[in-house]
């Protein structure tokens, strides 16, 4: 990768944590996709992330929000987005067209679990006790919020269509927590990282639920880009910016809000757990 003047400046600024005015605003913006499935639409976080990336890439950055993983994934594949924070499941489903850009580090690992939660006052301690529930999923393309539970039911030879009396999607992991906490749903499938994060920031909300079951570890929801774009200069810049986030004060502030430790380059085999789940599920269809 040739080190031109702009690239040098950007890297140096990011590394030093300097704040300089946005430059080259006339350039085509980088479009970065996010979904509320994973992130809450926290304005401070959004503003901080946009500012950080704009500075790091020396290009204007546009953060694009859509309600579902499906919408964001479609936009990414269609080329309307340059990169997006998606789930491991749509990443694997579109692996021929998508490439891994970065994987967040939670508790210093690029891993997370799926939690099965229920109301705090329920006696249930395993999945079979939740038969007949109204169950809340987060998103049909969410590994932890749908695929894990679906494959788990298949693996246990339970009928996916009738085990829960009724189920619905909330299009947000935090919404699953709210649904179970309020009693709208009696149980829910949720991203373990989100549940732990909410436990820290909104303990009264998380305390109304309890974790009934935890899955095995999976690769953390990654930042992906189109495979064809992976080697472009600005994609590399983005990857560097993400990986360097934990090295700057602005980046650390964003990471604190996200309750993450940083970003890693990651490797494809992190998602083998999800692959196994997909295989179980595909075999049942």
């Amino acid at each position: 990768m040739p080190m031109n003047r702009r690239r040098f400046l950007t890297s140096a600024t990011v590394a030093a944590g300097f704040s300089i005015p946005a430059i080259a605003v006339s350039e085509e913006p980088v479009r970065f996709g996010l979904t509320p499935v994973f992130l809450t639409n926290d304005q401070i976080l959004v503003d901080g992330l946009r500012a950080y990336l704009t500075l790091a890439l020396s290009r204007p950055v546009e953060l694009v929000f859509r309600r579902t993983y499906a919408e964001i994934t479609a936009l990414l594949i269609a080329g309307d987005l340059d990169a997006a924070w998606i789930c491991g499941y749509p990443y694997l489903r579109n692996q021929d067209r998508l490439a891994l850009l970065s994987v967040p580090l939670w508790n210093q690992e690029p891993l997370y679990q799926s939690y099965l939660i229920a109301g705090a006052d329920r006696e249930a301690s395993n999945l079979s006790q939740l038969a007949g529930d109204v169950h809340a999923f987060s998103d049909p393309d969410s590994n932890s919020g749908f695929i894990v539970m679906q494959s788990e039911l298949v693996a246990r030879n339970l009928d996916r269509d009738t085990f829960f009396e009724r189920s619905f999607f909330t299009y947000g992991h935090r919404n699953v927590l709210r649904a179970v906490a309020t009693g709208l749903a009696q149980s829910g499938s949720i991203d373990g990282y989100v549940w732990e994060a909410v436990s820290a920031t909104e303990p009264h909300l998380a305390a109304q639920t309890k974790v009934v079951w935890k899955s095995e570890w999976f690769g953390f929801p990654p930042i992906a880009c189109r495979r064809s774009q992976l080697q472009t200069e600005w994609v590399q810049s983005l990857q560097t910016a993400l990986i360097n986030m934990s090295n700057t004060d602005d980046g650390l502030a964003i990471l604190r809000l996200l309750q993450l430790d940083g970003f890693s380059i990651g490797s494809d085999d992190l998602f083998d757990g999800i692959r196994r789940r997909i295989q179980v599920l595909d075999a049942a269809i």
Partner: protein
Amino acid sequence: MLLSEHSWARPGVWPLTVRVPLIVALLLIFVAAIASERVLSRFSSIQDENLRGVASVYLDSVSLALEPFILRQDIWGTFDTVDRARNAAGDLPVLALVATDANNQIIAANDPLRFPTGTTAPSDLIAAPVVRDLSLRYPETTVWTQEDVVYQGQLIGHVMTEIDVGGYLAQRRNALWSLIVGNTLATVFLAGAGYLLIRRMMRHVHVLSQFMGGHDGAGLEEIPASAFPAQRTEFAILFDRYNRLVRAEEERHEIAQRLSDQAQLVSLGRLSSTLAHEINNPLGGLLNAVDTLRKYPDRQDVVEASVELLFRGLNNLRDVSKATLDFARSGARDHALSSVDFDDLRLLIEPELARLNQTFAMKLSVDDAALRWLSSTKVRQIVLNLLLNGSAAAGEGGAIGLELTNEGETLRIDVSDTGPGLPETARLRLTVGPAPTGSAGVGLRSVREITQSLAGHISVADAPGGGTIITVRLPFRPQNGRPA
């Protein structure tokens, strides 16, 4: 005026000082109750309108927001909307929001534990009134109302909301208490003021009542100047008029007494003329007898005849003078009535009857044992006056009659005449007694007053063959049962 004088069990006899403020208080309470009812009623309808207005705007916006979620049967979207809508209800204290499909199956409620998803909405929610029919009903502190969710003209669901109306009811209660307290204070103040005012006014009535005499029959008495109100009020004028009335009554009483005395004098005057006539008539004969005695002192027969004539003539004069004397002295010396008194009366009026060429029929059917219970003087005055009156009425050649009958407990005296009948004024004077006009009719007035003093009774009737019969009934034992 002491309250203890009045029986509390009978409100009709309560003193005015209590009754008037009480009536004022009752009227005030009545008016206050009606006014309060109107105020509260208007207040309630304003509250209802306000509630309907706020609820209508709220439910319109909520149903609009819910439309796409209900259409998709999106449980989370519906829940998220009702949950945020409940928290963003502004001034409307929304307790619950429930969204159902067109068949009243709950899609989501803000409180899913109370209204679980997938169940049929409770019947009271389904029956909840629409917003335009919403009204507060005491003592329900919460109300349900609902609105249809319509998409492209099709009913796709309902949104139902429970509203806490405790604040509205508290406002209503506060208004009610304010009215009660305010009205009570105003009523108590006005009733108290009325009591003091009336008591102050009644003080003069009390004074008047004291001087007018009570039930013990005490006479009227003038109100002294010291008891007059300080200012020239209506009561001062009333007191003044009352005093003039008292003085007039005293004068009337004195005049009546004087007239009564005059009546006796009038009777005596009329009698004295007949008496002079009676004395004068035999005097000629007696003087002739004396002359005869002088002329014929030796003629035994003439002397005897003249002496006899003188004896009878003088006896007659003695009887006449005695009767007159008795009548004139009647006030000084009274004795029990007897038949002799009626012989005296005949003697007294005979000259008058003779002068008018009248006949007199007297019938006594009562013995002295009964008559002695009555006063000779008073009965003689009654009968004499009635006989003289009858004689005057009967005129030249008329007839008068006197009949005494024992009617057990009473003596009945009938005096009849053949006159043209008693004029109405004379009849009234005899029985009722209007104020006398001059000396005329003094005799009849005396008859009435004396009869009343003897607890008797007078009636006047037309005689069958013309003329008048005046009947006087006198009880034999009028008061204390002691012989007169």
